[in-house]
């Protein structure tokens, strides 16, 4: 096992018929996954939450989460089937043949040991991977150089909590590469990082993959990241592969209706486009239908789809392009998937005017001299990386953060920091939607009760019937059927919860809605639905919005004005198209350059 065969034939990763089932009933969670990735390449494994992508990822190490087990299949790395190994030889294979980079680096690093010590320890376990003439310390320094971290003693003797998220993630990557494995599984390693750090980490992954001729499997929900990084891409839906091809072939010519749907849902940083979401949600394990699991959400469904499960078949002319569909769509490119957003007419008046706002956390100023307007019926986006103060801005305006000063006028009247000093009318017409839909609804109340709560307070004179009518109307506005009224929040998906939360803000007819990262916890297909609903409210109700986000691509789709925040200061401010097409400030330019694009047009390494 010490000598790795490098012949073209069996080098790389070959997965055949991988099936993971639940321990108890043997219900399949992931079924019949097969793919092959040659050495030196990156494979992107894309899927929305619950698709089973992480289950596949860890199964490549011969592992299954608690309650699950690998029931069938082969995972061959350079000809060695990991799943057939046991005990000592399996332990030996993990780390040396296949290594894993977790989503949250801090959970993968021991907080009580210095990073240098942890790296040395990892290498010492597989001591024979240290080549002749190398020392363990030398190897650690080499690894740090490779991932772009300082290899000084001072850095190596620091602890994980003393590093930034990006540095932690690169240490985790160095750890994975430490024993010269043949396959690296990366499970959403950049999800918690901002775009600039994400770009550096992605570059590291790409360089190391090529340099060491290893196979990388990159598990992600982010289409744009995969489009940039991966050589080939597999799309997972309800535990099965639905499409697999070279990355360019997927993003320039998607065939499966689900992949096509995803491409129509992913916002483009380059153009303002109308996003199209996918209604419904994938079937859960144990509820998989007889036929195609996507049939219920598919526009081109036919009788056959519900009767039998389509097989994964190769549609490619010159190269492999596998699709699991009876009626594949004509090839669709992400660049032509969507229609442009119509331009809103007129010159509206400002409804929320912020002048020279300064906010503090204790003695520290986190926002300085913030001045901008939100216009009637328009959306102003506030973008910036984590720590830029964008959430503090939103919280200050709605009254959750009170340590601020400045001149804010809302619908002609002044707005002070203390929400108790505001008029009831102001509190009603300025509504806030929280980032996390899992904590913003009362878990002990039904959807109807949650929606009625603001009505009971703001309109106590309404009769029970009038309240029911309003709930009914607002559910229709956020595109949920009345069947949801008596459900409890925990019975809803994240996207449905967020729609209820938006509904709770809308039900009292607000003038301005402050949305704090409301799409960041959602899958792209659901994000698209929400963004389009908000846009429709802008047009139909004249709703104005302050939209806080770190996602520049979403800004393109929803906002008309954009404010770029950096370290608590507005560095750029203007119409969306102008700012994003011709950024003048270096910070904005950097943000845009680092932004991954599903169109893959800025793939500079």
């Amino acid at each position, binding site marked *: 096992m010490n000598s790795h065969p490098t012949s073209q034939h069996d080098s790389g990763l070959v997965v055949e018929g991988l099936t993971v089932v639940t321990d108890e009933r043997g219900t399949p969670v992931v079924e019949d996954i097969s793919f092959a990735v040659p050495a030196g390449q990156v494979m992107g494994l894309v899927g929305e939450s619950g698709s089973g992508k992480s289950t596949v990822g860890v199964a490549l190490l011969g592992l299954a989460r608690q309650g699950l087990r690998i029931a069938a299949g082969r995972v061959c790395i350079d000809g060695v089937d990991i799943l057939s190994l046991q005990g000592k030889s399996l332990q030996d294979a993990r780390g040396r043949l296949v290594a894993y980079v977790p989503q949250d680096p801090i959970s993968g690093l021991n907080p009580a040991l210095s990073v240098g010590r942890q790296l040395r320890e990892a290498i010492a376990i597989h001591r024979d991977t240290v080549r002749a003439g190398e020392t363990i310390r030398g190897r650690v320094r080499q690894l740090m150089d490779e991932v772009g971290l300082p290899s000084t003693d001072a850095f190596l003797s620091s602890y994980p909590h003393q590093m930034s998220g990006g540095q932690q993630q690169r240490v985790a990557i160095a750890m994975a590469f430490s024993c010269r494995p043949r396959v690296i599984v990366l499970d959403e390693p950049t999800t918690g990082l901002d775009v600039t750090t994400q770009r550096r980490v992605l570059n590291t992954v790409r360089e190391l993959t090529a340099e060491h001729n290893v196979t990388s499997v990159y598990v992600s929900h982010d289409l744009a990241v995969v489009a940039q990084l991966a050589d080939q891409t597999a799309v997972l839906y309800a535990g099965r592969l639905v499409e697999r091809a070279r990355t360019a072939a997927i993003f320039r010519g998607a065939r499966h209706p689900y992949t096509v749907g995803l491409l129509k849902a992913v916002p483009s940083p380059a153009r303002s486009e109308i996003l199209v979401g996918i*209604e419904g949600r994938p079937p859960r394990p144990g509820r998989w239908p007889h036929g195609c699991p996507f049939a219920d959400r598919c526009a081109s469904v036919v009788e056959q789809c519900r009767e039998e499960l389509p097989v994964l078949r190769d549609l490619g002319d010159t190269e492999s392009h596998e699709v699991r569909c009876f009626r594949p769509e004509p090839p669709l490119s992400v660049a032509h998937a969507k229609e442009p957003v119509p331009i809103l007419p007129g010159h509206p008046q400002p409804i929320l005017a912020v002048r020279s706002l300064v906010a503090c956390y204790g003695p520290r100023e986190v926002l300085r001299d913030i001045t901008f307007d939100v216009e009637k019926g328009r959306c102003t986006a506030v973008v910036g990386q984590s720590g830029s103060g964008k959430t503090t801005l939103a919280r200050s305006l709605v009254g959750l953060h009170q340590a601020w000063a400045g001149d804010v006028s809302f619908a002609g009247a002044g707005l002070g920091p203390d929400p108790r000093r505001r008029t009831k009318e102001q509190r009603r017409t300025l509504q806030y939607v*929280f980032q*996390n839909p899992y*904590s913003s609804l*009362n878990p002990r109340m039904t959807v109807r009760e949650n929606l009625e709560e603001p009505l009971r307070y703001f309109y106590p004179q309404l009769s029970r019937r009038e309240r029911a009518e309003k709930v009914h109307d607002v559910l229709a506005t956020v595109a949920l059927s009345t069947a949801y009224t008596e459900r409890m929040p*925990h019975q809803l998906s994240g996207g449905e919860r967020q729609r209820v939360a938006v509904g709770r803000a809308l039900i009292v007819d607000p003038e301005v809605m402050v949305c704090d990262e409301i799409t960041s916890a959602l899958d792209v297909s659901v994000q698209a639905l929400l963004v389009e609903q908000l846009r429709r409210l802008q047009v139909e109700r004249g709703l104005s919005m302050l939209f806080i986000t770190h996602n520049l691509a979403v800004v393109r789709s929803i906002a008309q004005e954009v404010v770029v925040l950096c370290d608590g200061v507005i560095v750029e401010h203007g119409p969306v198209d102008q700012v994003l097409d011709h950024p003048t400030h270096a910070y904005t330019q950097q943000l845009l350059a680092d932004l991954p694009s599903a169109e893959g047009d800025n793939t500079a390494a």
Partner: protein
Amino acid sequence: MTTTTIGPNSAEGTAPPAKQRGSVRRILQGALATRRGQVGLALTVLVVGFAFIGPFVPSRSPVEFSGVPYSLPGNGAGLLGTDALGRDVFARLLDGGWSLLLLATISTVAAVLVGTVAGVVAAYRGRRTELFIMRSVDIMLAIPQLVFVLLIVSVIGAKVWLLVLAVTLCQAPQVARVMYAASQDICERDFVKAVALWGMAPRTVIRRHVMPSLTTPLAVETGLRLSFSIILISGINFLGFGTKPPNPSWGVMVNENRLGLATNYWGVLAPAIMLAILAVGTNVFADALARIAFGGGESEETPAVAGLELAKS
């Protein structure tokens, strides 16, 4: 236009829109499905039933002389023999439980009410209110419970209402601390902040939005406090406060008859066994509740669990 694709979501799934209301009921049912819960409840019901049916069971008088002191069972001395003054031990056992349980229940309910209000208000209001309430709680927790009760009772006199008040004052800080820890987490949730932002009165926010999420720790805490109240009150009885002689009480009986332990051990053993079974039963049942409420990862949201566990440690 593409916007028309956003039609109403079809009501998905076969699951009926079952309301997961009344988490207390869910936890009770869950606890009763476990062995631990069944045993705990059975033991508790056994003793409670005995105590409350006891006075109605026809038997000899619990306060009158019926035989030679400290005679063993049999020979006309009753089922469990006689006590230090020659009274029937079994009759006194039948009659001596209900007052104890009643006092324990009243003081527990009072303590849970006071403690919950204090703890939740402290967590919700924060700042000075929190400082004042929680530091007061700390001070009260620093005083040993039994010493505190004895102090009050011996200064003011052995009155029943005073005993209830003293036990309530002992237990309330404990409840306050647990409920404070539990509600701190709930008060930080977005849904509470959302309604507070509208300008809803704090009292309404607490009642409608904070309390419903606290039913679980509340149920567990009540069970736990009840068993501690029983132990505390019987301990006070043992020391001669609370129940006026010659009226029987299990705690009093243990004290009265301890000198005759070698002769008729039933005079001490019988009430002691009842107290032990009760304490074990309520404790085991509260434990079963806690395990169902906090142990199982079946529900997504785990209201106020971490806080509670923290407070216990």
